[in-house]
């Protein structure tokens, strides 16, 4: 069978298909998104795949499918699990019939996230087993193991890859075989109904299961202890790969404990690792989970082994690891000389903060709101999505950003303390459906004045353009009924709901002014598709004769297609999307394009 180049996330999706998954759902979030997309792309036809409205809905839907005996997988990023934590905690008591794997991608760094939280804690908190793959190759195998363990113990299981595993590619031998699973269907039983008494009984069962699972994991194929000596290294996830690479660089092979199941901790295997050691260095990303387990075991078994890692300041406690950081930590642990950098210092390099694409309709929306509020006291609460990038200068239009759906509600708190400011809440279409709606109802119910700006670009842009309830498309392809945002707002009691095209600046500014003057909750829905889901218009160009070099377009819009050359503005034709906004901003009519 030929080897294929597959991304870690694809490997997880393909591994789930191989394991006979029958139900897959989730909510997009970097670095997890491609897992579900892979299943949809390779769907043999009998797998149900959906983007759910949010992670909580997804977790519950997957639980239902698993109650009925199907193998179910739900995917999300780490912060998504916060949203889904309510069903997660209860489900840990109830358990499942068909295998259920909850794939949660963590993002050390963070590279594209708002927190550096560690899902292994959630595993401990909910007392669910968690698998932590070191590579795409291992993730491909592990997802199948996770389903098997889930069925063996009738419990949901977590698989926690991290960004470098999710977005790394490897050449993997793919066998196309598929496990055949025929769900038995839902059998009515009081065990599916959570009640205090049942919770108490199941709590005891869950506690009794913990050491059994730890024992089982002590012989799990991807947990291993190798080498010998007085000093040992313990590592989990991709950090185990960094550690091995660093050890190969320095030609050392101390005793090594690779931890693939950080919870329940494989105690017997860990004791065989600790035996005879004086010191241990732990390499892991995010929080010191393995480190604490080892410290605990040393205490429990009175072992005179010194455990070093994040808690002792021997490794970094934030950010991602690398072969270099592993190399430096191992060298000082083994008492070797540090490698000297032969590199001359680099010249000062340009910083490149990410920006909205050239032609992005959000730029026009932010500009319109800014123009409408010129000279007025206003606060702009933002949310999660491409439009968070509206914080960058020159727009500078995101004053707060916290988590999915929080812009709407943070604006309300701000307004109650400072009622003389106009409080705007920006929210994208997908985020509106995800967790935005209850916040709007909260404002309507409590009669809090906010101006809601819905940035409807007809897609979930930041994560790579997934459909959502407002798009009329689903992951199964069929056209479902579109959920109409204006209709929703009207139905929950928002009195003033206007729609505007942000690329028509005059009308957009007028719509914002009108909404801002309304008492109570008002809303403007800016409708204009993301450039990735629409065709570019004819490009615009600057007439060098007419351009006075005032730079107003650049200073006010910051479109990446506009560059300054010899004090005149130039539009880079390969980047311009023809949105026409710069032409509307130029006071001298120097920017023109073919009529759209």
């Amino acid at each position: 069978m030929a080897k294929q180049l597959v991304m870690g996330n694809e490997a997880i999706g393909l591994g789930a298909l191989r394991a006979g998954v029958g139900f897959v759902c989730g909510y997009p979030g970097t670095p997890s998104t491609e897992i579900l997309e892979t299943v949809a792309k390779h769907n043999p036809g009998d797998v149900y795949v959906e983007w759910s409205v949010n992670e909580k809905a997804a977790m519950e839907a997957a639980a239902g499918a698993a109650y009925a005996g199907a193998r179910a997988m739900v995917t999300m990023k780490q912060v998504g699990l916060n949203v889904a934590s309510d069903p997660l905690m209860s489900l840990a008591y109830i358990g499942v019939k068909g295998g259920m794997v909850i794939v949660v991608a963590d993002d050390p760094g963070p590279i594209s996230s708002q927190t550096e939280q560690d899902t292994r804690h959630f595993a401990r908190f909910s007392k669910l087993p968690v698998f932590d793959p070191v590579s795409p190759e291992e993730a491909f195998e592990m997802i199948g193991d996770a389903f098997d363990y889930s069925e063996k113990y009738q419990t949901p299981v977590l698989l926690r890859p991290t960004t470098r595993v999710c977005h790394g590619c490897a050449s993997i031998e793919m066998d196309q075989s598929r496990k055949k699973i025929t769900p038995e269907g839902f059998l009515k039983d009081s065990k599916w109904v959570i009640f205090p008494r049942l919770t108490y009984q199941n709590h005891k069962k869950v506690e009794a299961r913990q050491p059994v699972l730890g024992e089982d994991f002590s012989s799990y194929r991807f947990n291993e202890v190798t080498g010998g000596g007085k000093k040992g290294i313990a590592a989990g996830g991709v950090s185990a790969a960094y550690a091995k690479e660093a050890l190969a660089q320095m030609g050392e092979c101390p005793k090594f404990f690779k931890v693939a199941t950080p919870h329940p901790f494989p105690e017997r295997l860990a004791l065989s690792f600790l035996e005879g050691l004086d010191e241990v260095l732990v390499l892991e990303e995010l929080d010191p989970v393995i480190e604490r387990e080892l410290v605990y075991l040393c205490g429990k078994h009175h072992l005179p082994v010194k455990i070093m890692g994040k808690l002792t300041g021997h490794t970094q406690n934030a950010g991602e690891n690398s072969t270099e950081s592993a190399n430096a930590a191992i060298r000082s642990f083994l008492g070797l000389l540090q490698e000297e950098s032969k590199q001359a210092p680099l010249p000062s390099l340009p910083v490149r903060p990410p920006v909205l694409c050239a032609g992005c309709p959000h730029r026009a929306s932010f500009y319109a709101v800014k123009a409408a509020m010129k000279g007025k006291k206003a606060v702009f609460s933002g949310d999660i999505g491409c439009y968070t990038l509206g914080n960058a200068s020159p727009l500078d239009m995101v004053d707060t950003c916290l988590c999915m759906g929080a812009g709407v509600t943070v604006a309300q708190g701000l307004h109650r303390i400072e009622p003389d400011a106009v409080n705007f809440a920006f929210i994208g279409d997908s985020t509106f459906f995800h967790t935005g709606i209850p916040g709007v109802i909260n404002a309507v119910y409590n009669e809090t004045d906010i101006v809601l700006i819905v940035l409807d670009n007809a897609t979930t842009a930041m994560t790579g353009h997934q459909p959502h309830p407002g798009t009329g498309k689903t992951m199964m392809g069929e056209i479902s009924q579109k959920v109409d945002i204006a209709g929703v707002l009207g139905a929950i009691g928002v009195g003033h709901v206007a729609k505007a095209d942000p690329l028509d600046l005059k009308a957009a500014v007028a719509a914002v002014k009108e909404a801002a003057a309304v008492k109570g909750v008002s809303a403007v829905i800016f409708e204009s598709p993301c450039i990735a889901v629409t065709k570019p218009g004819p490009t615009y160009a600057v007439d060098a004769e007419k351009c006075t070099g005032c730079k107003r377009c650049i200073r006010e819009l910051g479109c990446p297609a506009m560059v300054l050359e010899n004090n005149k503005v130039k539009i880079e034709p390969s980047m311009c999307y023809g949105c026409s906004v710069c032409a509307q901003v130029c006071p001298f009519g120097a920017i023109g394009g073919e009529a759209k």
Partner: protein
Amino acid sequence: MKNCMLAGVGGQGTVLASKIIAQAAMKEGLSAHTAETIGMAQRGGCVVSHVRIGEDAFSPLIPKGTADVVIGFEPAEAVRCLPYLKEGGAMVVSTKAVQPVTASLSGCSYDAQGMLAFLKERVNRLILVDGEEVCRQCGSAKVLNVALLGAAAKAGVLPMTLKQIEDTIREKLPERFLSMNLKALAAGAEAVTGGKMQ
């Protein structure tokens, strides 16, 4: 083990280029690993692709000082990745600068010539490609990635030949993009033989 690093700005197509290198290696029966920058940085931030060819790679990321070749999609990003280049390694760099939006805002663009001069002093095998000219010839700025592969393969700094890259492109790219990309590959290779090599 061969390590190739590709450094550019979000939107320049480093991901496709790294896939092509990895797949060309796999066609030769070698194993390959890559690591990509996906997410927020794809909107105009710094992006780096790591390609590791051979069996003995543990980490998905290329450690500093071990890249056999760094392909810089623009001068400053090439300089940023210089610490990854191994001693005696090669660099292929497009000379056209991509200025960050912040530069046109503040009115102080970075000095691309200065970056190139810095590289010339430190890299013995530096291959400069007039990326702007090559893209002009092909009629699209979107093909810089494949043009740079053409230059790198022609200069013999990739662990595969130009022909092997071409075969991979023919096999993996959708029909409608094929002719433009083959043209870019040839133009990139030509830019090296055409005496633009330094």
